[in-house]
């Protein structure tokens, strides 16, 4: 029995690994996702055959309720709200870990880790680590969600002695954990939970809304480590394997984002970035003059070129302009123009966000190129059409040593013959840095919402 279930957990673990492996290319990804579902099924069924499980009714109800809610959310959610969705799911995993830790503490017999009041120190430490990480994940993700959804201000919320307060909380948590491992009192455990929940709020609240993607990825990683903690408590290798996979995934994604933004991870976590950004916004670029054009102008230039590269950014996502953009590309292709899409690793507000949006608008993924694959092509391109992007095409990152994004790899759109920007104003983007390309001779600005403007271009191309 024990052998069979350990074997089944191993198989489930392999399936989870294969699920992530599948994501290495869009062709294998769907099969990978299916293997993931299969792995989860195996894990669930295996657990349900454990002798401790005698009453199935609550379990069935629980899964049914959760399953329906989850499916409905997943079907309804707009692709532009993916970051929020991930934040919610993270928070649920974290909260579940907290509840499971409490269950294990209250009913250790069921988990085979001793009797109430007589749990080994090792198990106590493991369960409280799982609980602590879970609790931070929970409240942290809730705050991240609120900031992304606009329920909380996106500005970093900063108050005096913040770092000191955080330090005091961290020390308190460690002390409570040691105390709990010593006396295994339920009260201490509950207080520990409470303090950690508050701590989760405190560490995320000073971080600006625009940094939330990094935060979410980090919390995703934490949710993995919460699973590892629970896995150690339950002596369950599947939870440990899966947790490690998720932990690695979250950590790597935040690393990739930080590197693509040319920021250090600590600077993101210490927070306060959005605040400086806003103030840096309005000081320079007053003398220079940008050339504005109309949708007809843009349609004309693009129609008469032989190669166009489209660079979508955050603004395209906000405006939900992806379908209009796809139509524009189709119209251009009908005129015999070669069209490609260039995506910067941190375009938009989440890794891979632009790819999903373009895919949603039926753009074939072999027309969509990553930075390193397309950067050499801009010099042989007639028109680059930048839609709602800004920082990811800012040449200052290559030239201005003093600026915040200096060294960040950017798309070399300034090498193309003509650059068209579709955005509402000359305002800067997320990093709050003015873009000299707006004022270049080869640049044409098309002011307006991304969706409206693209549709206007389409109309003038059709007519």
């Amino acid at each position, binding site marked *: 029995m024990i052998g069979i279930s350990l074997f089944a957990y191993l198989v489930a673990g392999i399936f989870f690994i294969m699920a992530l492996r599948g994501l290495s290319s869009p062709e294998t990804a769907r099969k990978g*996702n299916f293997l993931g579902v299969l792995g989860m099924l195996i894990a669930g069924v295996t657990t349900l055959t454990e002798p401790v499980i005698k009453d199935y009714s609550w379990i069935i109800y629980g899964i049914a309720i*959760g399953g329906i809610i989850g499916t409905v959310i997943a079907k309804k959610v707009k692709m532009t709200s993916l970051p929020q969705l991930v934040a919610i*799911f993270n928070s649920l995993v974290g909260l579940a870990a907290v509840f499971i830790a409490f269950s294990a503490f209250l009913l250790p017999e069921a988990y085979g880790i001793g009797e109430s009041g007589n749990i080994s120190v090792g198990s106590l430490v493991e369960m409280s680590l799982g609980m602590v990480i879970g609790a931070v994940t929970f409240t942290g993700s809730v705050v991240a969600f609120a900031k992304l959804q606009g329920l909380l201000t996106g500005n970093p919320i900063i108050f005096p002695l913040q770092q000191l307060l955080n330090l005091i909380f961290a020390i308190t948590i460690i002390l409570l954990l040691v105390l709990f491992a010593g006396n295994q009192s339920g009260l201490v455990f509950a207080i520990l939970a409470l303090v950690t929940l508050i701590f989760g709020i405190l560490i995320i609240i000073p971080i600006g809304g625009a940094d939330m993607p990094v935060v979410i990825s980090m919390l995703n990683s934490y949710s993995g480590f919460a699973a590892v903690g629970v896995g*150690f408590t339950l*002596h369950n290798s599947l939870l440990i394997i899966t947790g*490690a996979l998720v932990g690695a995934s979250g950590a790597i994604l935040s690393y990739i984002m930080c590197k693509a933004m040319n920021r250090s991870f600590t600077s993101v976590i210490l927070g306060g970035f959005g605040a400086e950004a806003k103030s840096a916004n309005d000081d320079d670029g007053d003398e220079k003059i940008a050339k504005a054009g109309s949708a007809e102008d843009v349609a004309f230039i693009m129609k008469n070129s032989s190669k166009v590269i489209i660079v979508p950014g955050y603004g395209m996502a906000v405006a939900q302009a992806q379908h209009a953009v796809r139509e524009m590309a189709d119209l251009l292709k009908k005129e015999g123009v070669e069209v490609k899409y260039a995506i910067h690793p941190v375009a938009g507000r989440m890794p891979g966000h632009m790819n999903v949006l373009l895919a949603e608008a039926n753009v074939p993924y072999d027309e969509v190129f990553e930075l390193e694959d397309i950067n050499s092509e801009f010099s042989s391109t007639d028109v680059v059409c930048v839609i709602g992007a800004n920082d990811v095409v800012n040449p200052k990152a290559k030239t201005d040593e003093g600026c915040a994004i200096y060294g960040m790899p950017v798309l070399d759109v300034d090498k193309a013959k003509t650059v068209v920007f579709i955005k509402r104003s000359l305002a800067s983007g997320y990093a709050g840095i003015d873009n000299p390309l707006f004022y270049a001779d080869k640049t044409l600005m098309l002011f307006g919402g991304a969706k409206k403007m693209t549709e206007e271009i389409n109309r003038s191309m059709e007519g």
Partner: protein
Amino acid sequence: MKGHDVVGNAHGVADMAETLAVNTKVLANDVSMLSSQTQEVVSSGSEFWLLMTIFVLACFVGYYVVWKVTPALHSPLMAVTNAISSVIIVGALIATGPILVTTSKIFGFIAVILSSIAIFGGFVVSHRMLSMFKKKKVR
């Protein structure tokens, strides 16, 4: 055999019996301690480190597997990891399993709901995203 001899003997036997009983108890204790120690050694010492080994190796695997994920699929990756990290539902099921309704069972029930949301939600939304990724075809 004299009366008090007999009594003395009986006392002796009784004493012996008592000693025996005490010894038995000690023995039983010892053995049970030994048993639990054995279990302790095997399960706590050895098992912990085996699990730790598994953890470390899984971190390596995760590192390599995730770096191989194409950047275009980073969003589905996040959704899938949401789903699979909800495998902690395993712990929740165990808490919900007993017939007796206790706080632990109620907590387990809540955890089952929460993780089911993330499991179904994560897999469904990643499936939704992935089925949008299409190759160019002749139209």
